[in-house]
């Protein structure tokens, strides 16, 4: 019974959102406002239930703030400091935990980017320019190397894109455009897939027209 109600509700709201394709209307507005309201409430409960309570409050209640749990003082104090953002006069206090978060993110991001992206990707660009008995791989390798070099040339903004430099950069633009085209094609495919999912739900779970 509950599942049936859920399916009918989901179908109603799916159609309400789809109705915007014709024109703005009260059904769409109801669905939109409900979505915004539920999302706000959801994220409030979510942060409490999945982050603050299990990672900070629960261990504090169970084992206190000493021994191996003493480390919890750090997030506890930082959380309180962060709340000072709500008091304009003492808002500067919130900069400390913010700086910690930014520093942590930058540190992790930097090491990850160098170790996991920059070096492996550079290594992957060092390719044979002549692969015996395999012209297709040879062409592919050439394309890859030319693509990487010319695209990097395009992103040199300290020099005007003129003459030979400009011509190389223009080849880079062509590669970038091809990449944008591929991304756009994939984006269309993704959006259509989501529509297929919704139509599949309406025709299958709701109307039972397909199995």
């Amino acid at each position, binding site marked *: 019974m509950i599942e049936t109600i859920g399916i009918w509700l989901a179908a109603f709201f799916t159609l309400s959102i789809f109705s915007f*394709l*014709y024109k703005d209307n009260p059904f769409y507005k109801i669905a939109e406002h409900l979505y915004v309201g539920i999302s706000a409430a959801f994220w409030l409960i*979510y942060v409490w*239930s*999945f*982050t603050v309570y299990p*990672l900070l409050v629960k261990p504090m209640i169970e084992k206190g703030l000493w021994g191996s749990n003493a480390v919890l003082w750090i997030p506890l104090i930082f959380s309180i400091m962060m709340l000072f953002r709500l008091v304009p006069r003492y808002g500067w206090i919130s900069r400390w935990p913010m700086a910690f978060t930014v520093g942590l993110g930058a540190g*992790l*991001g930097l090491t*990850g*980017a160098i*170790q*996991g*992206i920059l070096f*492996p*990707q550079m*290594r*992957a660009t060092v390719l044979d320019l002549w692969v015996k008995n395999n012209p297709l791989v040879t062409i592919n390798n050439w394309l*890859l190397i030319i693509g990487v070099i010319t695209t990097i040339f395009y992103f040199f903004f300290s020099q005007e894109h003129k003459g030979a430099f400009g011509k190389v950069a223009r080849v880079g633009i062509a590669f970038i455009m091809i*990449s944008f085209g*591929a*991304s756009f094609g*994939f*984006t*269309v*495919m*993704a959006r*259509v*897939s*989501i*529509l*297929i*999912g*919704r*139509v*599949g739900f309406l*025709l*299958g779970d709701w109307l039972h*027209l*397909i199995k």
Partner: protein
Amino acid sequence: MNTIGKILSNINRQVIYLLVFLVVATPMILGIKAKVTITEPVKKAYDFIDSLPPGSFILIGIDYGPSTFPEMNPMLYAILRHAFSKNLKVGILALQNAVNIPIGAQVLRQVAKEYHKKYGIDYVNLGYKPGWDAVIVSIGREIRDVFPEDAFGTPLDSLPITRNIHSYDDIALVIDLASGGTWASWIQFAQARFGVPVIIGVTAVMGPESYPYLQSGQIKGLIAGLKGAAEYETLIHHPYMGVRGMPAQSGVHLLIILLILLGNLGYILQKKRKEV
């Protein structure tokens, strides 16, 4: 000519939406099938999973939510069916969002039932942990530091499946099914730092940006979008939601190409008329 040009350039958008809906719904209602060709990235993913010895533990990141559910869920179904048919042990976890876990758990329960697999022995749900970069790095040291218990509060040491799982050394493969940025972190930290093999399944939008990692050998395989899921379903000989969606997908792509051509034709005809 000018009238035709005007009509072609000003097709009512509601007409286009209706056409798209009909092209999507008709093949589904009529049960039309389309041939699915297998591409190398998906074949590589399939081959790698297929090559794992029975009993190997694989970790699947459920990092997609309801908004990308139609694209990503078929991938999870196909991978789980393949994994259970090969008697692999499966663990799921979510790092992007806690709501992803119920989605993954529902599919896991359903497929486990199909293959008569038991919770705690053949599969486990580790639940959600925030701060994915730190979590991924911590698993490299000791999984219990971040997941001392499964999603239902059972200590990992009490479950046969996780008793001997401590770090990436005990994990044969990580598969991240992602609609956000978690897949890059699995590559940057789990693969680059700890050397664990990684396969990623991403939404079609994210497909192009993931290909360089396949070319560099940082990932063992790549499944992108509903098409990728359909390919995987074809490889395991279990057509499901991905294969079912392909005729509609191809139909809409053809319609879009046709509309682009008609729109351009209309524009050219009107331009010519103005020049005359």
